[in-house]
């Protein structure tokens, strides 16, 4: 026994002495360490959908445009572009650029890549990101031909794209993963596994992948990148730590320059530290009312419940991540054609008012909550969702006298099924914008839309969504989008709670990175200040 103990301490001591050697990879190299939060589901750019993947691919790929922190597209692979009068034809003029292996990158590569994205046999989730392109949806759904898809490489440096309708956010779309160029030769050689190997992942971004082992990816600058001069870091090291507490410990230990998130409950302690950053994030957290179930078919009930919670308290005391109380559905951060914020012009659609809420509830036949039927709040397994549900349950009880609210927690798969089937009364949900335009928040509430879980239906709303797709006058399109939100929020099929934020810890000497409002961190110009 004593021997074992002694052995154990020897191991510990050995461990301690070795610990000194492993940390601190810097030998004059500028290394930036970041945690992407989880292992990427796939490294095939056209198949991937998530934010962690976006963060990885942003470093090694580049589309026609590159998104800045505010979610606005900037010229990248494309130097300039011409847009036709009716806004349905885009001609991109590419700059001369190379793949990371030094081969030239042409408009033909892009056209081939985009068409691959749409290939029904590839079966990409995000193929619908290309649906604004003429013939794309038909080809992807097996109803049309590849030849009819409106993508054409006119010459090596000119790409012409025909759209179904004016799509003002198309320049944002072309900055996405689904629109990235992939290296035809390697993809065709190994269509399933080309992206699993570092050697065959040839891309065109500011960095290239050097190695990937033990759940850690290392990138080094790509010398063939057209803007290589802007790249300052010598090496990026991305880890894939899922546990937020562990991640924070690593940060505080000096093993990370930037975290992916911060455990909400730790934020009050971290607030005193200059490293805590709250980045904007284009998303809304809300509860869905199932309008097909009484009493939620009654607008007075929906309004009363919506008005009777204290959002400021929820964001200050429960989520604590600097989220903004939400009084509408489209979050702040989306610019209008004139440059103003869409949310600033759009008004708050309700106020938290207990008296009005009580009156509305009484008018609906439930004075002081009496006789209000039992119902349940559905949420998917997560500590944060649970805390918020607990707080709201208590607020409805205190403020409206509704006592028989239960909480139903389901794991992800079951939750999705319940939500999509409408097997709930009130359910938690969140929506993160796909691109920086109000349309990504508003086109989902049309009658019968798969994402419209509330059962909401309004003919005028449906008509406006359709009109918006064809509207080429940007100001009148903007008016229509506001009108859509007005209609929707007046009927309150959902109860907005807060607008998301992205809290993260960032080392004080890390500069030049950009946390993008629709998700992902770009390290193209990042550096460590002395």
């Amino acid at each position: 026994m004593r021997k074992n103990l002694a052995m154990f301490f020897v191991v510990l001591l050995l461990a301690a002495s070795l610990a000194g050697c492993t940390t601190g990879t810097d030998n004059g190299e500028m290394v930036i360490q970041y945690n992407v939060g989880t292992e990427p589901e796939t490294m095939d750019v056209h198949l991937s959908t998530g934010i962690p993947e976006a963060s990885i691919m942003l470093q090694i790929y580049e589309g026609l445009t590159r998104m800045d922190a505010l979610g606005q597209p900037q010229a990248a692979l494309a130097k300039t572009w011409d847009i036709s009068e009716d806004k349905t034809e885009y001609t991109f003029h590419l700059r001369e650029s190379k793949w990371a292996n030094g081969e030239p990158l042409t408009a033909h590569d892009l056209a081939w890549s985009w068409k691959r994205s749409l290939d029904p046999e590839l079966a990409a989730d995000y193929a619908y990101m290309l649906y604004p392109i003429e013939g794309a949806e038909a080809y992807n759904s097996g109803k049309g031909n590849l030849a009819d898809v409106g993508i054409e490489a006119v010459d090596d440096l000119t790409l012409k794209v025909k759209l179904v309708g004016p799509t003002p956010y198309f320049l944002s779309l072309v900055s996405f993963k689904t629109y990235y160029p992939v290296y035809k030769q390697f993809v065709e050689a190994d269509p399933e596994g080309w992206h699993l190997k570092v050697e065959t992942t040839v891309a065109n971004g500011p960095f290239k992948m050097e190695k990937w082992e033990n759940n850690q990816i290392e990138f080094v600058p790509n010398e063939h990148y057209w803007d290589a001069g802007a790249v300052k870091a010598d090496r990026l090291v991305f880890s894939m730590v899922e546990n937020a507490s562990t991640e924070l410990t690593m940060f505080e230990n000096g093993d990370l320059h930037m975290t992916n998130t911060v455990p909400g409950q730790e934020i009050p302690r971290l607030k005193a530290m200059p490293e805590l950053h709250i980045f904007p994030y284009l998303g809304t957290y809300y509860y869905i009312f199932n309008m097909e179930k009484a009493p939620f078919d009654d607008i007075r009930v929906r309004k009363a419940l919506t008005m009777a919670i204290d959002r400021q308290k929820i964001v200050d005391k429960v989520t604590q991540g600097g989220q903004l109380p939400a009084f509408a559905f489209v979050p702040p951060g989306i610019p209008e054609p004139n440059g103003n914020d869409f949310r600033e012009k759009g008004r708050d659609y309700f106020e938290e008012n207990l008296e009005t809420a009580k009156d509305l509830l009484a008018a609906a036949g439930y004075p002081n909550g009496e006789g209000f039927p039992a119902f349940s709040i559905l949420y998917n397994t997560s500590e944060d969702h649970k805390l918020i549900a607990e707080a709201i349950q208590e607020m409805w009880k205190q403020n409206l006298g509704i006592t028989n609210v239960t909480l139903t927690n389901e794991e992800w798969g079951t939750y999705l099924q319940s939500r999509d089937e409408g097997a709930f009364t009130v359910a938690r949900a969140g929506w993160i914008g796909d691109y920086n335009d109000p349309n990504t928040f508003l086109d989902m509430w049309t009658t019968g839309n798969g994402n419209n879980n509330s059962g909401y239906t309004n003919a005028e709303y449906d008509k406006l969504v359709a009109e918006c797709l064809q509207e080429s006058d940007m100001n009148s399109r903007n008016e229509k989008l506001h009108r859509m939100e007005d209609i929707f929020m007046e009927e309150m099929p959902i109860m907005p709670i807060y607008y998301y934020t992205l809290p993260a810890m960032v080392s004080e000497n890390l500069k030049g990175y950009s946390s993008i409002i629709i998700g992902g961190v770009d390290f193209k110009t990042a550096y460590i200040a002395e």
Partner: protein
Amino acid sequence: MLEFVVRRLLSAILAIWVVITVTFFFMHAIPGGPFQRDKVLPPAIKENIEKRYKLDDPLLVQYKDYMLNLLKGDLGPSFKYRGQTVNGIIAARFPVSLQLGLVAFAFALLVGVSVGIVAALNQGKILDYLVMSFSTLGVAIPSFILGTLLMLVLSYKLGLLPPATWGTPLHIIMPAISLGALPTAYIARLTRSSMLDVLSQDYMKTAKAKGLPRRRIVWVHAIKNAIIPVLTYSGPLLAGIITGTFVVENIFAVPGLGKHFVTSIYNRDYTVILGTTVFYSMILIGLNMLVDIAYSQFDPRIKLSARKE
């Protein structure tokens, strides 16, 4: 012996087949599917995906195809980690879990058995209470709390060990302790209890009376007989621990296989669910067979073959 092994192998194959079949129909019966997304996919895209992964075939056809591929050793493509195969996932991650699991297992076995013997030889004395209370802490503190506390003290406060991730021998220490704590306590208790059983047996008294040295009595005669329960527990323990543990892997960011046992089910990643289950059940059933064979080595009275009655 040969007859026993052959019979056991046949029954093992049958058992694995039952496991696969039950798991297959269970996982298709639970709500949700691998391509049910938070943002609902347009029907045409969902169709493309289902066609590509042959999820539009009737369930029985899918079952037949799966079994045929399995016979060829092909566990299929992952639905969640697109581009990766289940064989690839297991091949990449099992070595990590195996490494960590073996260290944790060795730790649990060494410490557990020693503590158990010490306690048994000092039954009712202070030392007995002391070592048993200490080993009980391993049971009383679950791995997720122990892991977090270890990290807090050894990495965060003292800076002795790297807090997480994988790669050097140092990274093994904390997860191995977190994993090994509960088995250590259990093995200590089992050892103590069965040592006491054996020590009070007549043949022990005989050995003592014959004047054999105490050390020899304990180490040769007692332990050999007392080890049966520990051996029994070791089969499932080893199978479980070398195939990875979700909680510990999550806390210490260990790229092991344990994660996939859990997340595949949340993701409804059917092929990964089946692949990990088949893999685990093969290891478990194999180890249990070895354990049964080992019984007869430690205790010749145990007969493996059926008695002719």
